[in-house]
């Protein structure tokens, strides 16, 4: 508890610092007319990486610069004013942010990402001065300080002894797989029997039902954008993504010419080298008593929830971990953006590179258990304007990622662990980037279904998943998953020495949704279904069970649409649900009844039907929206038509550029009008 409070304080400081940073930018420029050159600098230098700047060149200028560097060395270009500045700042290097990937260079150029460069120079020279000098150069379009844009959603750990792991699934009925520790995974299957009677049956992701249809697909790659994943772990290695060209190629050589060397299971973008998971493993406390952590097995824990190998007689189960037949689990790509306590953790350039790498190397789903603590200054317009490089990489480039069955990358984020702080300050919002309208933000509940105390909630929250809550049920009421053994030492000197361990946080809730998304994509492949990213996310957000009934009243309607249900997602992938309507009668349609378990937290907006279909069905007026969150229709003719329902997930109002709110999405139904229906629901 003490450590949790300390961590919360550290996060408060970070949040205030972040807010303060935004205000500093205003203070610098308010009161003076903002020159065109000054407008190129899009963020503040506070806490930015020293001796580093990100620069976007105009399209034509970038091309000239590239030809210059080939012959004249890295610190010279064809742009003389630039050369003067580089000389003044003792430039060490200037190179593309995104190394050339020969397979994807054309796409990179179409996205304009080839115009972004990173300049390294003497760390003792003021960042602001260098930025201003570069801003005077006409060929430069944008300047961004390389700042940390996010922190890890650190698990809210309780110190002390680790809880013993209980082998055998003897406490649960009808185990599906032979993984000995699966009985500890209440998040997958909760019979309500455990954990000091705090457990509520059904508070899980209903994955056992889903596994009857599919357990994964090896062609699906999930990018874990996080600390490095221990790809040697006994219960992960069979489901790690393998870059075959690099594995079978020469060490030290970029065998596949994707711009990275020896990237066999992913890449470490912080240290620009091999994936690691064992740096700065001893927690440190500063003079103010704030604790900072290095590598804590965060990425490894997340990877296990998504795709630990099923039915291998070892460890735990993974949502999309396959069933050991022909290695059919989804594959984990480790795209590392955190490394120990590096000052380059999750900077703009590191995050941008990770997302681009994921897209270029086949990942169409990404798990992101990190974010920046919420503050009133944050909204979609702010995210888009200020964070230009990462916006382009995530919202444009990764979003264009393609899979045979899913067109468009899907980025899933943790909501954040500042819940207690937010509540005390009357501010309800989730972390960015997760709060951004295009992304899915995941809140957390415990074994009893209630909101975990640490979980962010409110504006931007889209869906809920198990993340554990030690306050309700003790240590084993957290989430059990794979862990890097022997490498984490907390501030009390306790060594976490296990290949499996419990953690809690929205960091742990997030991979449940990512794992379900991967399972759903596997099912889409199985049945030959093709979806756009918007369709996929829409189906995901309605594949839920009632949450509000289990929440304390103050959290109702603020955790997203409901609790993720893997089985329902597969069924929603399968097809369109019909809404039956009796001809001639005024029918009231409660759309909620056709989604989830009938108690989704969804606000209806509109029921869209084409004018041609309205005519065909003999509708003299459009569907009428009712106060009771339903629609009213009257059809004079029999027939059927596809209708589209617009809804809001996560709140009663739609998010805008300037205010964080719910995500608007659509779902199709088949409106079927008949003279009568069998009284038992039978079709004939």
């Amino acid at each position, binding site marked *: 508890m003490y450590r949790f409070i300390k961590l919360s304080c550290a996060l408060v400081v970070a949040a205030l610092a972040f807010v303060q940073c935004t205000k500093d930018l205003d203070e610098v420029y308010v009161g003076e007319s903002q020159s065109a050159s000054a407008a190129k600098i899009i963020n503040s230098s506070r806490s930015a990486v020293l001796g580093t700047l990100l620069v976007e060149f105009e399209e034509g200028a970038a091309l000239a610069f590239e030809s210059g560097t080939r012959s004249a060395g890295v610190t010279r270009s064809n742009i003389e004013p630039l050369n003067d500045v580089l000389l003044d700042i003792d430039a060490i290097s200037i190179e593309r942010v995104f190394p050339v990937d020969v397979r994807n260079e054309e796409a990179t150029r179409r996205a304009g990402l080839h115009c972004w460069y990173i300049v390294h120079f003497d760390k003792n020279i003021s960042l602001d001065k260098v930025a201003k000098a570069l801003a005077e150069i006409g060929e430069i379009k944008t300047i961004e300080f390389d700042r940390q844009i996010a922190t890890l959603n650190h698990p809210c750990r309780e110190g002390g002894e680790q809880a013993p792991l209980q082998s055998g699934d003897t406490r649960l009925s009808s185990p599906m797989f032979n993984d000995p520790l699966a009985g500890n995974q209440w998040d997958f299957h909760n019979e309500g029997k455990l954990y000091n009677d705090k457990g509520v049956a059904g508070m899980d992701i209903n994955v056992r039902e889903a596994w*009857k*249809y599919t357990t994964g697909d090896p062609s699906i790659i999930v990018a874990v954008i996080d600390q490095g994943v221990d790809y040697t772990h006994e219960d992960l290695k069979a489901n790690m993504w393998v870059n075959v060209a690099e594995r079978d190629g020469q060490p030290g050589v970029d065998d596949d010419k994707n711009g990275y060397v020896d990237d066999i299971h992913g890449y470490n973008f912080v240290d620009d080298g091999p994936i690691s998971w064992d740096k700065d493993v001893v927690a440190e406390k500063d003079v103010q008593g704030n604790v900072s952590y290095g590598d804590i097995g965060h990425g490894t824990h997340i990877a296990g929830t998504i795709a630990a190998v099923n039915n291998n007689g070892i460890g735990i189960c993974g949502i999309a971990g396959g069933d050991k037949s022909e290695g059919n689990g989804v594959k984990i790509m480790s795209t590392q953006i955190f490394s120990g306590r590096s000052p380059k953790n999750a900077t703009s350039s590191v995050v941008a590179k990770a997302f681009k790498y994921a897209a270029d190397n086949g990942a169409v789903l990404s798990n992101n258990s990190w974010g920046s603590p919420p503050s009133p200054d944050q909204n979609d317009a702010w995210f888009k304007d200020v964070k230009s490089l990462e916006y382009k990489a995530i919202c444009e480039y990764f979003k264009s990622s393609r899979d045979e069955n899913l067109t468009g990358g899907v980025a899933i984020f943790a909501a954040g662990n500042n819940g207690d702080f937010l509540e005390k300050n009357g501010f309800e919002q989730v972390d960015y980037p997760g709060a951004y309208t295009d992304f899915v933000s995941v809140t957390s509940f415990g074994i009893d279904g209630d909101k975990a105390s640490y979980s962010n909630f409110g504006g931007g929250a889209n869906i809920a998943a198990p993340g554990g809550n030690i306050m309700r049920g003790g240590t084993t009421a957290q989430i059990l998953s794979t862990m890097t053994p022997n490498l984490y030492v907390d501030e009390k000197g306790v060594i976490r020495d296990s290949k499996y361990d419990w953690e809690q946080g929205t960091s742990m809730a997030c991979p449940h949704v990512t794992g379900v998304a991967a399972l759903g994509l596997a099912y889409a492949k199985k049945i030959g279904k093709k979806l756009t990213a918007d369709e996929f996310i829409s189906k995901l957000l309605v594949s839920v069970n009632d949450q509000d009934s289990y929440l304390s009243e103050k959290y109702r309607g603020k955790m997203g649409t409901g609790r993720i249900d893997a*089985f*329902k997602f597969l*069924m*929603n992938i*399968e*097809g*369109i*649900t*019909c*809404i*039956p*309507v*009796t001809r*001639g*009668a*005024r*029918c*009231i*349609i*409660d759309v*909620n*009844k*056709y*989604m989830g378990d*009938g108690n989704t937290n969804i606000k209806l907006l509109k029921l869209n039907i084409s004018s*041609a279909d309205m005519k*065909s069905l003999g509708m003299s007026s459009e569907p009428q929206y009712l106060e009771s969150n339903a629609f009213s229709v009257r059809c004079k*003719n*029999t*027939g*059927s*038509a*596809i209708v589209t329902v617009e809804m809001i997930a996560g709140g009663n109002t739609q998010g805008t550029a300037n205010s964080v709110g719910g995500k608007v999405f659509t779902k199709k139904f*088949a*409106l*079927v009008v*008949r*003279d*009568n*229906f*069998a*009284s*038992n*629901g*039978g*079709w*004939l």
Partner: protein
Amino acid sequence: MKLTKIFLAILAIFAISCVSESGTTEVPNGGGSTDTTKWEEEGSIVGVWELIKLNGSTKAKPRIYMSLNEDGSFDLYQQADKIYWVYYSGRFSFENNLLKGSYSDGVEWSSEYTVSFATEPTRIRLVSNKEKSIYTAVDEIPQWIVDEARQPEVETTISATRSVAVERFL
């Protein structure tokens, strides 16, 4: 001569429009598409069928598999107003191209259906109260659907779609 050609053209068009629905070309349905399938009155109703078109649409329809068995029993698997599959069974009769039946819980089918047949591929068309459904013959109902289909829920409250005129649509 010109007038004669026009007259003959009009006669030809009129002749096509007047062709009886049974046994020859189908008239365009409400969905706007023109189906040129040749539907016959003769054929076998026994078999396993999958719904492929409802009122001319291949998309605005539920998922339906039904097995009409030799002994007069039927098995129906539907994914209609639920996201999961539901199983029904019962008995049917087929006489003078009229298909009707009742469920094992005693509930009568909502309609009687006039049936016609087509080949290459083998299909049946069920028509009732202006609703047209086309089913194609399949080898079997997918086993995973058979394994996972649920029993119908017993509704004790007013259903999701309530009409003012009737209490329950089911």
